[in-house]
């Protein structure tokens, strides 16, 4: 998850989630970043609206009705 945390850290401070920024953060955390994983993450996050996803994550979870007894 360290790559995801790094991405959310960047997002929460308003920085772009790109390879360079991710690398900088991960290195500061003492990790040698894996190019492929960074590229994959950046690509995967393209088109994802992070604010929306987070907002949804906080939303109430629907509970299916218990089956009739």
């Amino acid at each position, binding site marked *: 998850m360290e790559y995801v945390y790094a*991405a959310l850290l960047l997002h929460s401070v308003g920085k772009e989630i790109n390879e360079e920024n991710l690398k900088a953060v991960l290195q500061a955390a003492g990790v040698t970043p894996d190019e492929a994983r960074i590229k994959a993450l950046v690509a995967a996050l393209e088109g994802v609206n992070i604010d929306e996803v987070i907002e949804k994550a906080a939303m109430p979870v629907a509970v299916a009705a218990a089956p009739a007894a």
Partner: protein
Amino acid sequence: MAHVAEWKKKEVEELANLIKSYPVVALVDVSSMPAYPLSQMRRLIRENEGLLRVSRNTLIELAIKKAAQELGKPELEKLIDYIQGGAGILVTKMNPFKLYKFLQQNRQPAPAKPGAKVPKDVVIPAGPTPLAPGPIVGQMQAMGIPARIERGKVTIQKDTTVLKAGEVITPELANILNALGIQPLEVGLDLLAAYEDGIVYTPEVLAIDEQEYINMLQQAYMHAFNLAVNVAYPTPETIEAILQKAFLNAKAVAVEAGYITKETINDILGRAFRAMLLLAQQLPEDLLD
């Protein structure tokens, strides 16, 4: 006061002194209290740093005036407007709200009396009663109470509300309730008004809804908790929720992006698999493997 009997002067003097020596002065109506419960209440009040003195309404009025004058607190005189029934003076250190609550909590159940209004719903509970079979069964049934004889005892089939709060007890029902040992009435000191620090409080003001305060407490706590977690202000109470929220946020984003880690793999594969299942449900059966 020229023609006033000596004992009355003394009584007023004593009452006034009492009023002057306590911060909270209340008027209560003792007329519904039988002698024994009243003496119990006196003891209870003494145990709670107070005193109850029953006197004639006219003397109470004079005592309040005298005390108000001597204390230089004209607001105290307003208490006089609330004197009614068999008034007594209750002086205490409890604040008026606590006093009201105290009096409410110490009301005692009393047997049914025809013509009296009940303060709460009266329910005859389901189950066996101590009553032996007799004409009372027919009387109960006539009133819609599901009574039956079981193993030689009158048994009530299910909980039955026979009176709603505020309704009046009929003589027939009073008989039945007394036979069952159900005490639907309450006796206690009725607070007429209470004075403290220049303010006269009436029972309407003093009857606070405790549940409302509990709700407010819970709401205040939730607000504080929400605020602290949402702005990530770490406290011993919020640190876990903050960590969890951060984790859940990260996980939600990774799952949405289809970025597989050991924390997200179950969700991601599960999502794809469930999408397949849900879609398959919409297809004709012969299409499925």
